[in-house]
């Protein structure tokens, strides 16, 4: 049964690619700036967070890293998680016409969102590299560990997304809850500031939020190790992300047969 599920999904891989391609193409249709928005949005967020946390709140950066770079590395991870949770959870509803009229493995729809998130990530990553070049602050050998954290950040966002997507089909309440939580999450997670400013005795509790370990990891890889490598936070992050992903996938598979009836 397990093998069957994945084999079926593989047979429909072209549909998966084309759904992801559709989501990417449609996004900036009939806009003047087009792809410019993909560049402008993270830069503006970065500027706003830098102004609030550095210029106004006078929070310290980690080591010698420019504060803007610190913020952008945080955003790099945060955007993936935020996009995955909000888009994956609503992806089934957004494609209800497909679900009720055509048969294909339902996992393709959230999976297509995952692919879009990956593309987005690399675009943001490219912007970050440009920024770093501008500040003459290029990453060192630690960047080699980045792929690990990339996988982790995708897992961390996809798991809850999958779970919420399955629930969302039946209970639409989540539509109102998710955006609110995401808004809150931006300030609870160490995106606009370094997690160092959290007092030592609260650190462990703080890292129960799996994004904390991931953002710390990103900063360690990209900022010359000036953000210390918080192993317990990373371990906790791996644990929480995998458990949530496992539960999410299980929930999705248990309910996917009823999607067409409920949506």
């Amino acid at each position, binding site marked *: 049964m397990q093998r069957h599920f994945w084999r079926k999904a593989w047979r429909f891989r*072209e549909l998966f690619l084309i759904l992801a391609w559709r989501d990417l*193409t449609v996004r900036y*249709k009939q806009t003047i700036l087009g792809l410019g928005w993909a560049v402008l949005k993270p830069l503006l967020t970065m500027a706003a967070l830098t102004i609030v946390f550095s210029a106004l709140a006078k929070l310290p950066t980690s080591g010698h890293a420019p504060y803007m770079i610190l913020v952008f590395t945080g955003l790099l991870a945060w955007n993936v998680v935020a996009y995955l949770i909000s888009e994956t959870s609503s992806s089934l509803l957004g494609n209800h*016409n497909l679900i009720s*009229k*055509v*048969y294909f493995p339902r996992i393709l729809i959230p999976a297509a969102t995952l692919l879009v998130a990956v593309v987005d990530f690399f675009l943001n990553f490219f912007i970050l590299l440009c920024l770093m070049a501008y500040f003459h602050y290029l990453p060192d050998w630690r960047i080699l560990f980045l792929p690990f954290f990339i996988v982790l950040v995708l897992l961390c966002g996809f798991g809850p997304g999958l779970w919420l997507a399955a629930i969302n089909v039946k209970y639409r309440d989540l539509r109102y809850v998710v955006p609110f939580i995401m808004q809150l999450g931006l300030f609870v997670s160490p995106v606009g500031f370094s997690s160092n400013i959290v007092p030592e005795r609260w650190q462990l509790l703080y890292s129960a939020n799996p994004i904390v370990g991931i953002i710390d990891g990103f900063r360690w890889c990209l900022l010359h190790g000036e953000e210390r490598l918080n192993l317990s936070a990373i371990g906790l992050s791996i644990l929480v992300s995998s458990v949530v992903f496992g539960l999410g996938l299980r929930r999705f598979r248990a309910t996917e*047969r*009823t999607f067409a009836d409920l949506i």
Partner: protein
Amino acid sequence: MSNVVIRAERLGKKYTISHQPSRPDLHSLRAEIGQQAEAIWKKARSLVRNGAIVPRRDYEEYWALKDANFEIGRGDIIGIIGRNGAGKSTLLKLLSGITEPSEGCVEIEGQVASLLEVGTGFHPELTGRENVFLNGAILGMSRNEVRKKFDEIVAFAGIEKFLDTPVKRYSSGMYVRLAFSVAAHLEPDILIIDEVLAVGDAEFQKKCLGKVEEVAHSEGRTILLVSHNISIITALCRNAVLLEGGKISNFGPVHETVSQYFLRGKATSFSVEFEPTRNDAGSRGAMLLGAQIQDAGGRPKGEVDVHVGCKVIMRYRVTNDMTKQAHVIFRFWNSEGQCAFVSTQSGGPFMRGDYQAECRIPPELLNCGLYFVDVALMSTQFGEPHYFDEQSLLCAVAVEQTSEAREIEFDHAHTAAGVLRPKLDWTIKQLT
């Protein structure tokens, strides 16, 4: 490899429908909010306790399809007919795997493509070209397949000029044409079509039908077709399924199934007796007693061979002597509701008594398909036309008995257009 490609056993699908409990005692917004809050609190409580979120009594079970058993062989073209809500779409959804059956099972051999809606997954912002690829992938074509057939698809839809325009700018006709032509170029083993042939203008519809026929006659492809357009069903399918209230009530030759469909629905049959004690019909002077379709030999029969013709028999009773002429009338209607022809016969004066009128429908007049016949009795006794009685309760299916001796005049004689198909006298002579 067996010859059965679809086998359904005790196939059933149950839906639960919820009823909004109405509370007539609620008049103010405040009371309403109070009730809502209470309901939310109850839901939250039972959610925590892992109970049902919606109270059981608000639910009712509804079997959209029940106990369906059938087998469909390779290369069959099966029509599925039935009234709205009879379970046609549910059956198609079960066969295409969109929903899971609540009981029973269905075994399918081969690749299935379902076309339950024209343009499923079309994205308004994408161009025609992009949508062809998107829709193709959704319907199960590989990118290479679409690329190979791309020119054919575009030519069939006739939208070459607008390929790079977003489809939201298309007229609705262009939109459905493009959507249908993508679907028409699918090449699955089993094709499931739900009421989508009636798109575009008349010319395009004809093209669509031709395409479906072409697909159907190509090797070993099985087609399941739902349509309310009975003439499409009779033209394309040899066998048909009749669904009634979620149950299969007939699965057999298309004409048999189609006539049963109409028989049940309108209490229509090829032979009817009218109640002689109907109010006021008799008091006006005359009334219909019965009507019947008979074959040329005089046997009551609902199936008429177009090459042989049939008879329409009407019986009526005159209750008061009539001094002026009276007319017996019948009209033939086709299944789309067009009147094919009217025939009347005048007679009289009529003395009190029972009468029988007989009219012969000549061979080579009717086209294949379903006809309804209504009968009436009329008189000009009081200066203006006065209808004594009108009944519309007969139906007849005209078919072409396939016999090898019959010369083949049209290649696809059974799909010849027209309400009637009379055989007329022709003379052809050489002029130069």
